[in-house]
């Protein structure tokens, strides 16, 4: 049954949001058709289809066999994922992986075991691609526990190695991350053979399916996307069926948000929809914002597929604590670790380029106070949903 028309949402009242939407749509119009311009020296990473991935894997095997036949010494060049090989793409504001590689030889003591394990992962991935199946990192580990030395961290690291060797996203290897995030609101999608309307799937909505290659966005009438860090806050909005009063899409990221959620969010932002982030008012919140915006160092090679540079930090800002006079007792003191992280963030160039963000962090350091999203419930259950968010949207008070 179609949702009731929502006259209650006054577009004029929230014209600032709509302005963002218009800008987004225009930007898509302009950049349509142009591939992402990457800076020089960055490794080209593709999101491969199953066949493409299989073909690349076989190329690597051909190379290895040739080496063995000619020199008896199989060597693999694995891209170096240490911080020395990370490049900040200023234009697109993304952390990207460079082209430095370290060579691993089967006949050297240090890398003999690594090479054998990478080969094992290649074998398993090849199997998955052949049967067009998906597996999680845990499944990969259990395929050869002894071979991976009884520790999953060994196999986890290797799957990223293989993805970089193939110059592909990890999803291309059909090894998917376990889904964590969920999404609800004004959105219609196809997941495999089913068509889902996320506005009529209960308060938890749709669990983001990590096999994103089987997911298509069909239709939306939302005005903006709101990503919420804490699950508890999401429940508040879900119960209030926030998305009925405000035409929007809600997503719960649970911390930095898992790979699948961030990739899905990027698709939404690629539709021009304005994306807002609601996190706790502490330095870690800002860090999460930076990860959503620019990608993380560890997975820098996947940044082009995960970062949403146009994301806006809606709150909770340090200045909001006083503006919306959150009671003192609901506020917490900054820990030493918080201060250290705040200072580090202030050093980052993307914060230097954003004065409002820098000031807010400095205010937080000065006041030495931080607060969680739930702190608003001290002003009543409905305050967050009825007062805080609407007002912020209306006044365009975001970074």
């Amino acid at each position: 049954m179609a949702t009731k028309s929502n006259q209650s949402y006054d577009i004029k009242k929230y014209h600032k949001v709509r302005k963002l939407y218009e800008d987004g749509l225009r930007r898509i119009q302009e950049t349509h058709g142009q591939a992402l311009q990457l800076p020089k020296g960055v490794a080209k990473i593709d999101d491969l289809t199953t066949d493409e991935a299989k073909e690349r894997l076989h190329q690597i095997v051909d190379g290895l066999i040739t080496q063995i036949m000619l020199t008896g010494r199989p060597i693999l060049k694995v891209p170096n994922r240490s911080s020395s090989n990370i490049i900040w793409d200023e234009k697109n504001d993304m952390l990207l992986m460079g082209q430095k590689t370290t060579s691993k030889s089967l006949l050297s003591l240090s890398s003999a075991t690594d090479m054998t394990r990478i080969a094992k992962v290649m074998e398993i991935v090849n199997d998955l691609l052949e049967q067009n199946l998906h597996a999680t990192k845990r499944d990969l580990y259990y395929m050869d526990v002894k071979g991976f030395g009884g520790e999953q961290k060994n196999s986890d690291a290797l799957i990223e190695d293989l993805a970089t060797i193939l110059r592909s996203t990890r999803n291309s290897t059909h090894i998917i991350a376990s889904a964590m995030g969920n999404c609800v609101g004004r959105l219609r999608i196809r997941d495999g053979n089913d068509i889902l309307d996320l506005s009529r799937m209960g308060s938890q909505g749709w669990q983001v399916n990590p096999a994103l290659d089987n997911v298509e966005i069909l239709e939306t009438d939302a005005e903006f996307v709101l990503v919420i860090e804490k699950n508890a806050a999401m429940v508040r909005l879900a119960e209030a069926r926030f998305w009925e009063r405000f035409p929007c899409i809600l997503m719960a990221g649970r911390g930095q948000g898992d790979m699948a959620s961030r990739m899905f969010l990027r698709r939404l932002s690629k539709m021009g929809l304005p994306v807002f982030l609601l996190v706790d008012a502490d330095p870690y919140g800002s860090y999460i914002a930076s990860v959503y915006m620019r990608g993380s160092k560890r997975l820098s090679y996947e940044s082009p597929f995960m970062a949403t540079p146009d994301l806006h930090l809606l709150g909770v800002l340090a200045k909001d604590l006083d503006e919306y006079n959150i009671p003192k007792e609901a506020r917490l003191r900054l820990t030493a670790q918080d201060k250290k992280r705040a200072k580090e963030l202030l050093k980052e160039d993307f914060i230097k380029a954003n004065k409002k963000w820098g000031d807010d962090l400095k205010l937080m350091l000065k006041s030495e106070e931080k607060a969680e999203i739930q702190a608003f419930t001290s002003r009543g259950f409905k305050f967050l949903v009825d007062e805080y968010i609407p007002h912020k949207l209306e006044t365009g008070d975001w970074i």
Partner: protein
Amino acid sequence: MDFNVYRLSDDRIIQIASKEKMKKWTGEVPLVYINYIRDSHLKNYGSKKDQKEISDYLDEAMEEIAVPKLIAALESHNDDEVMAVLTRIEELSRKDPDLVKITLSNVERKQHHPNKDISKLAEKIQKNYDRAMKRRQIKKQLEDNEKIGGTDAELDQKLIRGDISENEYLRLKKERIEAYQELQE
């Protein structure tokens, strides 16, 4: 562009998958999608004018993409592809028979396809469709019947009150029982 953007009269913005995007989809998916939008969302799109604009786009998409894709899928000599599409159509034929109508002619041709699976599947689709049409017909009969006799309880009252003759009552009752039996299969 992946999405068409429509600005409705009441100032709302709607984004619907564009034809380009649909092209990438396989087999029967565009068909299913178009019907879904038409049935469940068209009416919410504000003014009649807006709705008309969108429904015209949908029809376009139907002719340009949905049907040809379906046909192409069916006619492809790669048995696997054909099988994949037929299984999807067979599913649809159980859930939403009307959508399948367009493909019936092609499906019928498949019934005597050398590949046994395909031919069996095609027959099954035909059977589903026919049964669905028959059921619709029975349902319609039942409706007419209820229009005349009202609900079972009312029918009994009418019989007691003598509004209807015993033969009439028996005929109506028999008709209803047959219909219910048929709907059970």
